[in-house]
């Protein structure tokens, strides 16, 4: 009974996992060095940042919203954090702590702005976050004078290369956040309300809750994950540049949607989002290892994204076929 339930719920959420599996199998055969430990570690590192942003994006999309500003806000967070951390007049420990806090705080403030404005005036979050996309990018360029910031303390950059049992530290952060957020969404009252509002906001309102509050919080959460992602980025690349993050919103939304979350809200899961991010990462990695030309790679990427999601629609049949 219970085992059956778990399988069923896994297949419901993890339909896209089948696509991921198939893709991996193909690459194991055709992409040299794909199935090496070192390469696996690379993939882990490469999907970490997108995964973290996609976590926040999942909250927003579950509420039928969208956040286009994540890439720009990431740049703004990184630039400010970079200026703080590379400030030689601060003690290293203080600088690191302060930069992490300020990055998360800036992300949250931007999220608050997005959430508050779109809820207060009932404006499509597409427009508000499009505005924020411009505002945050402009600010990031202004603050940094469009210079790349570098020379971070060793104690900080070390973290970027840190591994635990061979698993990159930043991937561990990402996985921890996935687990935490999955837990919040599936087990807490807050999480259930997120789903409820995404399902039928009017019904929630009639039941005496204030959907506005939760929607704003979702944007703030999204901002916070962006702030964290900015720090991870800085650990990984040891720079902070105002032009980074262009197009990140598309990757993050893609991870969420490929993972099965409906853009109309109320339906979806974080496990799906994580698998979506994995698909994108594995695809980028595997196709490069196969050694295709740039253009062919781009074309094939397009087809595989579509195929993966088509495959997902056949998961019921597939799950039956696999179980017999």
């Amino acid at each position, binding site marked *: 009974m219970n085992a059956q339930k778990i399988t069923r719920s896994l297949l419901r959420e993890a339909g896209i996992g089948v696509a991921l599996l198939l893709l991996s199998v193909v690459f194991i055969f055709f992409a*040299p*060095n794909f199935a*090496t430990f*070192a*390469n696996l570690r*690379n993939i882990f*590192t*490469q999907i970490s940042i997108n995964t973290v942003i996609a976590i926040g994006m999942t909250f927003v999309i579950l509420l039928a919203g969208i956040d286009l500003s994540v890439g720009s806000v990431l740049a703004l967070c990184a630039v400010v954090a970079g200026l703080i951390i590379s400030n030689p007049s601060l003690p290293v420990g203080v600088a690191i702590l302060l930069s992490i806090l300020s990055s998360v705080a800036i992300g949250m403030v931007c999220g608050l702005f997005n959430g508050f404005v779109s809820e207060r005036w009932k404006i499509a979050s597409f427009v508000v976050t499009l505005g924020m996309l411009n505002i945050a*990018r402009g600010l990031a*360029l202004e603050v940094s*004078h*469009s*210079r*790349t910031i*570098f*020379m971070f303390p060793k104690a900080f950059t070390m973290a*970027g*290369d840190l591994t635990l049992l061979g698993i990159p530290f930043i991937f561990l952060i990402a996985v921890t956040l996935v687990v935490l957020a999955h837990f919040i969404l599936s087990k807490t009252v807050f999480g259930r309300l997120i789903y409820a509002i995404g399902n039928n906001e009017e019904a929630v309102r009639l039941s005496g809750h204030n959907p506005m509050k939760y929607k704003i919080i979702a944007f703030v959460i999204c901002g916070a994950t962006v702030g964290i992602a900015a720090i991870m*980025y800085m650990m*990984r*690349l*040891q*720079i902070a*540049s*105002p*032009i*980074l993050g*262009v197009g990140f919103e598309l990757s993050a939304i893609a991870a969420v949607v490929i993972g099965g979350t409906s853009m109309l809200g109320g339906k979806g899961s974080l496990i799906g989002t994580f698998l979506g991010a994995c698909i994108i990462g594995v695809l*980028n*990695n595997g196709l*490069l*290892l196969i*050694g295709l030309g*740039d*253009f062919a790679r781009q074309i094939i990427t397009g087809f595989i994204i579509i195929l993966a999601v088509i495959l997902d629609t056949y998961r019921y049949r597939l799950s039956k076929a696999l179980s017999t």
Partner: protein
Amino acid sequence: SAQAKKKPVVGLVMKSLANEFFKQMEEGAVAFAKKDGSFELIPVGMNSESDIDTQINAMDNFIAKKVNVIVVAPADSVGMVAAVKRAVDAGIIVVNFDVTLNKEAMKNAGLPADFLFVGVDNAEGAEIVGDHLGKTIGKGGKVFIIEGNPGADNANQRKEGFMRSVKKYNLNVLSSTTAHWETEEANTVVTNLLTKYPSVKGIMCANDSMVLGAVRALDAAGRKDVQVVGFDNILPVQDLIKRGKCLATIDQFGPDLASNGIRAGLRMLKGEKLTGWQKTPLRLVTKADFK
């Protein structure tokens, strides 16, 4: 004020100011305008490097505004030609800098073949730094080329320059892949390529932003035996060169580039006739420069 109105107006059409290379260039131009004081400068940047559209709009807006001189760094060597022709027809002096307009397109549009161009030879720069890499890793060395945006002129020219070095030193190009000028993408691409081709000895990046990503990829893989070269001489890369993590880059004296163009424009405004390619200097930057 009335006095300001009499000053000639110079419109500066830049590429993406988000790129620190162009930002420095713009700052150089602004500083020059301030010091010189004989003209009014209106600089305009774009949202991204491939944003031809905004550039054309900016050109048209300058024409509507009837500025005296337009100094333009085309985002597309062909796409900008029609707009340049419109400006020239409207009696505006146009100086082409940084990226040269396409000769054939100019001919087609009825612009003279010896239309003034102020700028460096990108291919030559790439060749210089490529040669330095070739010398360092030796004949037959295995390399990656990390390209700029496919379709972008300076990306094409730099690749062409690299290829000349490749030929000279009989280098073995394992992969030539785009990272769209971006640090993050370069990091991902190089990381993955290292997995595929562990035997690589050198990496040629078409700009310095990508060098940053490539060097981090080598760091993360614990590779100290791979030499990286870039283009643009941005501060973080100078730091990398000092620390021996990057072999060399090319300095195009960015801050002076736009000012050179403006100077040429002002001279033409006074009646001088300038034509052809006014090459601006290039310099190889290596660790030796920081001793």
